[in-house]
């Protein structure tokens, strides 16, 4: 129960932090409004899927260094396939690319289980393999995306019966994010497999002795990671209209948001909501630094310091809460 409270407490704390940052943003830039929130949601998309991909694996006690490379490969595959094709062809491309991510993720898991090489080594090797594969698909940024796919992340959701002033705060990008993550994560978390994920993350030996199929669970954890990474790759293609074979800065960002989101790097603890809110916090910090015109060479230092301070403060509060 206390653990449940603590976990919810962390997520609640992140929501409060995000709200405070929004207030701060409004003070820095009085004109900050709905349109800017829509931009924020679009900027969050690829990061959010990258962090979702990382979260599943970290909860199961692993790490996936191939997240960003997987996004690059799925992004160029989608962009190359849609290049010059009819809009309806994209209806085939999307499930194909998602399946590709799922299978490649499973390959990560199978290699770890079969070869018994540490996950950090296997996924590092896969990072290079996938990077090379992405360059084989497209040697330079290019390809295209179907217009209807691009439109999925532009603008706001038209909600009936609500005034424009309210609907302006519901970006399509946010809806897409919530739907895509929810459709996979909610059933997964409440299934036996979800319980097994947390179990092998907490203690692989205890899980094994309790009859949890450790190997299968681990493989599926990586497969779902691959699926989320493929969603991230698709959002990259949707938001830029092209595929870029060189991976973006999503690997380290995903690890950062996982930690800030209250997921224990050792595994077994945390959820998906925390890391996603953490992504919003980190992107909004970047926005604020740009709004304040902070020296660009200083911004990454500021971002890093904020992260360490928040995590330290959170751990300190959690410790205080435990002592009588």
């Amino acid at each position: 129960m206390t653990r449940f409270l603590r976990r919810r407490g962390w997520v609640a704390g992140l929501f409060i932090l995000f709200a405070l940052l929004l207030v701060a943003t409004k003070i820095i830039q009085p004109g900050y409004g709905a349109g800017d929130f829509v931009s924020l949601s679009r900027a969050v998309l690829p990061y959010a899927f990258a962090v979702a991909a990382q979260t599943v694996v970290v909860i199961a006690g692993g790490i996936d260094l191939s997240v960003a490379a997987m996004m690059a490969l799925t992004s160029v595959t989608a962009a190359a396939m849609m290049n010059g094709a009819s809009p309806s062809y994209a209806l085939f491309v999307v499930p194909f690319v998602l399946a590709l991510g799922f299978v490649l993720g499973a390959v990560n898991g199978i290699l770890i289980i079969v070869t018994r090489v540490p996950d950090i080594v296997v996924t590092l090797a896969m990072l290079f393999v996938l990077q090379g594969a992405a360059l084989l698909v497209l040697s330079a940024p290019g390809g295209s995306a179907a217009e209807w796919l691009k439109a999925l992340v532009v603008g706001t959701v038209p909600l009936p019966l609500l005034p424009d002033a309210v609907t302006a705060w519901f970006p399509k990008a946010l809806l897409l994010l919530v739907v895509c993550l929810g459709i996979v994560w909610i059933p997964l978390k409440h299934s036996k497999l979800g319980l097994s994920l947390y179990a092998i993350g907490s203690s692989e030996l205890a899980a094994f002795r309790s009859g949890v199929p450790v190997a299968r669970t681990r493989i599926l954890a990586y497969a779902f990671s691959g699926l989320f990474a493929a969603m991230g790759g698709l959002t990259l293609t949707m938001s830029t209209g092209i595929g870029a074979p060189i991976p973006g800065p999503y690997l380290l960002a995903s690890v950062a948001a996982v930690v800030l989101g209250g997921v224990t790097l050792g595994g077994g603890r945390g959820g998906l909501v925390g890391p996603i809110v953490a992504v919003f916090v980190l992107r909004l910090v970047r926005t604020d630094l740009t709004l304040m015109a902070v020296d660009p060479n200083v911004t990454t230092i500021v971002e890093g310091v904020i992260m360490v301070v928040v995590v330290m403060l959170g751990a300190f509060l959690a410790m205080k809460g435990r002592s009588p």
Partner: protein
Amino acid sequence: MTNTRALRLGLLAGAALLASVAGSWAQGTYTIGVSNTVQGNGWREEMICAIKAEALASGKVAKLNIAHRNTDAAGQSEDIRNLISAGVNAIVVNPADPSGINAALKEATDKGIVVVAVDQAVTEPSAYVVSNNQEQYAYLGAKWLFQQIGGKGDVVYMRGAAGASADSDRDKGFKKALAEFPDVKVVQEVFTGWQQDQGKQQILDFIATGTPFNGIWTSGIDNVIVDALVESQTPLVPVVGADNAGFVGQLNTVPNFTGAAVTNPGSIGAAGVTLALQILDGKKPAEQTVLVDPQLWENATAEGKAKLKAAADPSLSPEWPVSISIPGWTDYTKEQIVACKGPGE
């Protein structure tokens, strides 16, 4: 007595008022946003410093808002949208991709923000482009190199970053020159990613294979290539590079070395600021795209040597292009660009 004192006070007050008015005018009123996606590269640093110096020297810019980090097209779109949120009047952007940031650029121009792409072109029609003529850059250098090796032989082709529009434009120029010299063969083609360390490793790897070559064309990663040739005691073949201070120095000082530097001023960033300010003041250019033509300085002739001597500037960082200003487009002094300070800094 009191009268003169009052007069003197009055004059003083008047002068102070004038000075403050002049001061506020010199402060300028515009806010200009800058977006760049390569950090830690000498050429890009010079571009940023040129933007700062020009904003200061123009006297029309109150504040610069610089989003400068290593990222991809999606990240640059995020930066551009943040600059829109910040309420800038104009955005000077060095695009990560010719079409990948179009959606964000369109949002900016729809809001009445003047968008100027520098160094590389974008396909968004509402944006202005001020660029070095990259096709001509490659054509000039490659043609000189092919003539220098007698119109036949094997050359190493060291390109920039795959997919960058500057690289694909340069490739067009290089291929154009190559078509004019049918006996010249490309024996090795690599992408340096415009990274010094990577380029040096690639040429060392190639030298280790023992494949003979007669010349090297580089996309601006030049001085480390000459270093590699000297260090590995390989015959000094002609090398074409950019006008980076280090390479220009080598052309002047390394014995028995022939080569050519093609100008590719990083100060093009300042030209972007100048164009943006002209448009904000209601002076639109006739063309949406403005190209700055490069020059070639070689050390094979006495005339070329004189040009190189005049251009050399050992006081600059070796990775900075020596052409720190562009006539007609830049107004700052050398001290200002080296100081790298913008308005209000």
